[in-house]
């Protein structure tokens, strides 16, 4: 473990000031399941943890009267998948949060942490992307909001500036007829980082036409991708074998992965298609 200090922030302002004073080596500490490992293994220079879990709004789940949802960035996964209302209205968030790590990881890990770790293979981010989540960031210049698909800029990199941290995530209410599904592929049945993952949210009208869709695939590029072409392939018509295959092909075409110990380029390109297809079908089942 690097020589790291610990500070507990009681308010957003205090966290911002601690992070700002701490400079480049200061990192927010939510569940710690990534940053503690990075500090221990010296893969990132970290000399200060600013614990943000004791700030009420950073660990809160709020359901808006309009059906929208706000989740504090450091809210642990188990609280998210254990929330009956989320399970009913945003089951795709249960998909993601219930397979990040094992049970003990889910006791600490958070969607905000998953986002800020900015791994191309993050199992939270594709779901956030298809849900059109907005990221609320606090910093020395106050608060700002960023669309989640614009948040990550590269492996382990994102738009956060010095002194900034993610406070919460806002989700608009899903329109009637919506359904969303996240699936990842891993070699084992639990505990792995995704070889490839994918999420789809789509909306069906009364006639079974897809009126709107968002499709995201992960671990196939430096950041999780929003694949507009895949969505376009299914929108404006009822789902068909052809349209689903076209969407899958669009995801494979958008994929620009690397070969590493978790998967090969062609495996990932192939899986981007397979998982796109599967998420479309299962999102449609949820929409129905």
């Amino acid at each position, binding site marked *: *473990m690097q*020589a790291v200090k610990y500070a507990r922030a009681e308010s957003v302002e205090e966290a911002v000031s601690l992070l700002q004073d701490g400079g480049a080596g200061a990192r927010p500490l939510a569940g710690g399941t990534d940053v503690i490992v990075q500090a221990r*293994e*010296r893969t990132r220079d970290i000399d200060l943890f600013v614990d943000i879990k004791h700030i009420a709004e950073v660990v809160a789940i709020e359901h808006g009267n309009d059906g929208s949802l706000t989740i504090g960035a450091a809210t642990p996964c188990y609280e998210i998948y254990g929330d009956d209302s989320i399970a009913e209205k945003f089951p795709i968030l249960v998909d993601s949060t219930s397979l990040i790590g*094992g049970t003990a990881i889910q006791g600490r890990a958070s969607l905000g942490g998953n986002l800020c770790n900015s791994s191309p293979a993050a199992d939270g981010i594709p779901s956030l992307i298809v849900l059109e989540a907005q990221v609320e960031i606090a910093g020395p210049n106050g608060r700002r909001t960023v669309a989640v698909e614009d948040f990550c800029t590269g492996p382990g990199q994102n738009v956060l500036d010095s002194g900034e941290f993610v406070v919460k995530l806002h989700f608009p209410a899903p329109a009637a007829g919506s359904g969303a599904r996240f699936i990842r*592929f891993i*070699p*084992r*049945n*639990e*505990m*792995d*980082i995704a*070889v490839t993952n994918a999420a789809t949210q789509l909306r069906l009208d009364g006639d079974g036409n897809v009126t709107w869709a968002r499709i995201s695939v992960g671990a196939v590029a430096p950041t999780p991708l929003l694949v507009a072409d895949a969505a376009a392939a299914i929108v404006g018509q009822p789902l068909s074998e052809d349209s689903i295959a076209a969407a899958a092909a669009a995801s494979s075409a958008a994929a620009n992965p690397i070969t*590493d*110990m*978790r*998967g*090969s380029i*062609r*495996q990932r390109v*192939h*899986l981007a298609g*397979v998982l796109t297809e599967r998420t479309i079908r299962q999102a449609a089942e949820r929409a129905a």
Partner: protein
Amino acid sequence: MVTAQSQPQSKETEQYNVIGTRPIRHDGVDKVTGAAQYGADISLPGMLAGRVLRSPHAHARIVSIDTSKAEALEGVLAVITNADFPRASDEVIDTGEGTAQLNWVLDNVIASDKVLYKGHAVAAVAATDHHIAEDAVELIEVEYDVLTPVLDVRDAMVDGSPLLHDSLHTGEMDGSKSDNPSNTASHLQFTKGDLDAGFADADVVIEREFETSMAHQGYIEPHNGTAYYRADGTLDIYTSTQGAFVVRDSVAPLLQLSPSQVKVTPMEIGGGFGGKIPVYLEPLAALLSQRTGRPVKLTMNREEVLLATGPTSGTYMRVRMGAKRDGTITAADVHLAFEAGAYPGSPVGAGAMCALAPYDIPNQRIDGYDVVVNKPKTAAYRAPGAPQSEFATESVLNELAEELGLDPLEMRLQNACEEGAQRADGFTYGIIGNVDCLQAAKESPHWQSELEGPNRGRGIAQGFWFNIGFESSAYAQVNGDGSVPLVLGSTDIGGTRASIAMQLAETLGISAEDVHPHVVDTNSVGYTQVTGGSRTTFAGGWAAYECAMDIRRQMEERAAQIWECDASDVSYGDDAIIRGPANEDGNDQQFTFKELAAQLVTSGGHIVGRADVNKTSSGPAFATHIVDVEVDPDTGKVDVLRYTAVQDAGTAIHPAYVEGQMQGGVAQGVGMALNEEYYYDDSGDLKNASLLDYRMPTALDLPMIDSIIVEVPNPGHPYGVRGVGEVPIIPPAPAVRAAIANAIGVHMNELPMSPRAILDATVLGGD
């Protein structure tokens, strides 16, 4: 002969009172309350924390090491390198899994002129706190001259390949050496019959090539070693080891101490599977303690375990096998090239012995090559060498059955070795359970059931391991209340305190609970070989039996003294009643064990039984496994749906722990089959040195594993014990391969058969 899992005691063992029952293990409470002390749990007054600096390169010459900045760091008390050890000779020492040259043992513990794999130890530090020790190794400056690494066994065997050791020449079994230095350390060969004639007799011949990845034992407890070099020149070592005496006999010559100066205390051990036989940290801790005069504890983290401790060999194998139309196997030619890692000593010899061992094949040739590569030195791993070699041979046998349209189980029965059959290496079988396992599998509910559903398949495979005997020691004392402390030298990794104590209890006719087994240090018990080779319950049990017989004799003598009769008129019955001749009144005289125990103190003192055995016999073990899988053709993922393991245990002393060994072996074998691999980049950097990416099966990856214990008692053991620990890791990979082929029609020729590999072989269409 076959016992269901739920039955408390088998038919074979009904003759026994203790053997075949399922008592609570003696060390159980400590292990469910957190009280048990494992190697890393030790804390000694004034103890320092150590840390090892490891090579970032797979192959490099060490130009210089500058430790001055580390030494200057506050809290650092010592920094050592290879140069600080006494010069080691090329003398050969017993390493518990064979033998090794002392200088190579030292060089593997800490590199001398060259580093030979990524993670090779280069320097070690002792500091007042482990955080400081960690900071200190970062301050050590090492200059390397980076060399081209050799990472694949076939590349390493090619003339002109970069050499790991300039002094290494290929040794043949006849003692001759190759003229030129080579990465091939040795070649062995077994032959039987006339190979050409055998293939000429065959109607069908199948030849396949296989590649398997290095795989790690994966014990959950990382290596550790704590040493305290005392002012009087004695050295205490506390460590998690499979063989305390091996540690003693390795560390002593490395520090040029007498074995009598070294006391090794085996702590509780968090798994070993063969990987905790070699020394890694103990010699470093010992030298650091010698330098500082304080106890020093070294522990590895998981990355170090995967980078720098012994996995099992990666291999290249080629098998050609021929059979007649009726299924008779006429000939087999097996070529095995095993990666030894950085220093010679792969398990290719054992792999060669086991390769065709279940089958009576008249014409055979088995060649084995032990080859060094720039990867960690391999260590024993559960039936070392056999999971690889039998994967190759069982796979080709399954394909022959398929080609001939024969039931693979029937074809195995048709060719199975029975008593009197001779293997190519010259061994002639005594009474074995090979056919019995196949028959039990054939009659099992699993084999009798139908498998339905798309992309599903069933596979079967046989496994063989020879098992070993060797030295074990046991002492036991009879206390006045009839309880019996039992002193053992075998580390208890999976319930052997219980299985050995049960054999003592059986022999004495007392309950398992009245025996109190203790694993003690090397000064407190006679020489005992490693817990490994499936020898512990076998040889340890034999020692316990002889120890108990020693007690029985002494108790007969004591009873004779009390009754004032001749000892030959006293008999200790298997019911633990000591019977003497009628007394003056004509009444029978007898003691229960407890009654006589209560009189020992007043009739001449306590009784201590002792036994030291060195057993040459062993008792070969066979296993038959059946597996059902489902393959996702779009992702290449294989799910294990159902698994049945059949195994000849000889006599199952504690059936629950026999089942546990079978189930654990299956889990490791399935891991090796599906996902476990050492993933190196071209520079020799291991890219998956974590339990995140070295993918061992989780609870969600396996079904319940039905275990069927077959009992064909080993005539070479007082209670018929055969070793049980090793053989169950062998059949899973070939059985899973057959099941995948049955499901999707594709034969995989590499391990692991990962989703990536299966996709490559199917929808992504080859290389």
